[in-house]
């Protein structure tokens, strides 16, 4: 099992999430921006769930389904950085290339992340809400007893 990774500096770690779902997310309050709490049994699932959370916001919950594939390779130096860089990749794919991610199979590499994103191509018009970026502010990624939880703030 991987060691727990706590990325937050001076922040509050997410509450223990009591949910039967294997992977899930919820939006949490942040005065200026948008924040998510995420949970999953595996780090890769956590990343896929994070992508779904962001795409749901971008498309106001109306993302078309798809099975198109994009290869992904990202540089990142720890799990917090992996989550932020991945979400920014998801944003770039959606906003610039019109590719809406709905699932991903990602492997952690010493350099960062590598794998495949799956989703719908040519869906630029489905993006109705602007999200500027995932941020490092108040970022938490942790693994407690085999369960991954995270909190990430998005600048909108």
């Amino acid at each position, binding site marked *: 099992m991987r060691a727990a990774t706590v990325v937050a500096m001076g922040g509050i770690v997410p509450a223990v999430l009591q949910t039967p779902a294997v992977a899930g997310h919820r939006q949490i309050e942040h005065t200026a921006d948008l924040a998510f709490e995420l949970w999953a049994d595996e780090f890769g699932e956590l990343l896929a769930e994070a992508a779904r959370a962001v795409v749901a916001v971008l498309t106001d919950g109306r993302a078309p389904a798809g099975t198109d594939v994009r290869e992904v390779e990202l*540089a990142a130096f720890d799990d917090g950085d992996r989550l932020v860089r991945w979400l920014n990749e998801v944003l770039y794919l959606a906003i610039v290339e019109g590719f809406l991610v709905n699932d991903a199979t990602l492997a952690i590499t010493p350099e960062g992340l590598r794998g495949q994103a799956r989703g719908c191509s040519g869906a630029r018009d489905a993006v109705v809400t*602007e999200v500027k970026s995932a*941020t490092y502010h108040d970022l938490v990624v942790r693994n407690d007893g085999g369960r991954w939880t995270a909190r990430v703030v998005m600048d909108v």
Partner: protein
Amino acid sequence: MTRPFERIDEYRVRIPKQGDMRVPGLIFADAQMMEVIATDRSPEQVVNVAHLPGIVGHSLAMPDIHWGYGFPIGGVAAFDPEDGVLSPGGVGYDINCGVRLLRSDLMHDEIVDRLEDLSLALYKAIPCGMGGSSTISLRKPELEDVLQGGARWAVEHGLGDNADLDVIEEGGRFPGAEPRKVSDRAKDRGRPQLGSLGSGNHFCELGYVAEIYDQDAAAAFGLGLGGVTLMLHSGSRGLGHQICDDALHTMLRASAKYGIALRDRQLCAAPLGSPEALDYFAAMACAVNFAFANRQVMTHFAREALLKFFGRGPGRPASPSELGLRVVYDVCHNIAKWEEHDVDGEKRRLCVHRKGATRAFGPGHPSVPARYRDIGQPVMVPGDMGRYSFVLAGAEGAMRETFGSCCHGAGRRLSRMAAKKLARTRPIFQELRERGVFVRADSKATVEEEISDAYKDVADVVDIVHGAGLARKVAKLVPLAVVKG
């Protein structure tokens, strides 16, 4: 987190230096505003900024401060060139997000019955929202010219007048831009977006001067009671967001490399003279110029639309002199700049970070355009789309206490989620119409997030900066027609 706030006077609250803070915090707020500020984590962010190396004076916060990421929104910090740092989190994602104000010879009664058509004309003229790609699509070499030329590029291409440039911060062209320091991704994001509003809190607003507090300053700014104004709020769009993203990744590594302890990763930074800081500055300058050009191009689109609207029929637009539509000022509120300031009687060159804070240079400052130099730099402080905005003039107090800075807006009071929840129980567009405001938006959700209730009353914010002597109230503008993303 409980902080020992020390009230200094009616408008100032100090957070004393403690632990590893290098300077104290200073928040401009009266008792009522401080109660609101203390409900979120922005005071903690003021403290975090006070820990950064080379910070000079105070970690400052304006009365519209609210919880951001890294720096609070409404934060100002100046850094010494020798031991200070440059932090992309102190500038924000929307580099050179800012406000441009135009005045006109049109009067409120001339347009009040035509707002429905007028708002539609502006909505059609200015690309906005996520689908809002500009009608100008740049090839890569052209984009690089924009990144270096800023608003000057637009004027040289027939999108505005030379006179516009005299009343833009930095003359609309920020020095030090190096397009080769901007990633291809950032360029890809910027190319289709020049001359577009974006979404979120960005807007194009037609309003009128409802109240004047300082006749001389208002006259110098070309603002008369009942006169119609146009205000634009936007920034560097996806190009700036990507430059910030790219820099944060580099700066996180740089913070570790240079041993800079961070209380929030978003505050990652590099010493001002380091290659990482120099690279970010050169890329940031490109985004600053893109944003100046963006507001210049949108000004051109809005001018064309208004000249056509007030013309004498198809193919016979009004002449620019008939409308008297002239830029009052264009000022940015997300930036890091080298400036000279007096610190304890000594003139020092400092790198001033303003994140959600407006430059507000006082009378006599050489960077204030000649026509306003006796008055002070115009400062536009937008409120919310249902109430009012203010025009101020920078004052001496800002030069003494805040490195020539003041507030930038109302400051959010409700999260976007809470605002939406509240808005969905009410007929928002109808309510705004009953107040005399026509809103055209690409997305209903954006309007819901931006309802008046989501913001503090901007009148309370400007009363504090006026009372504290950072800026003087000049005029109040009331919205009539608003275009949102």
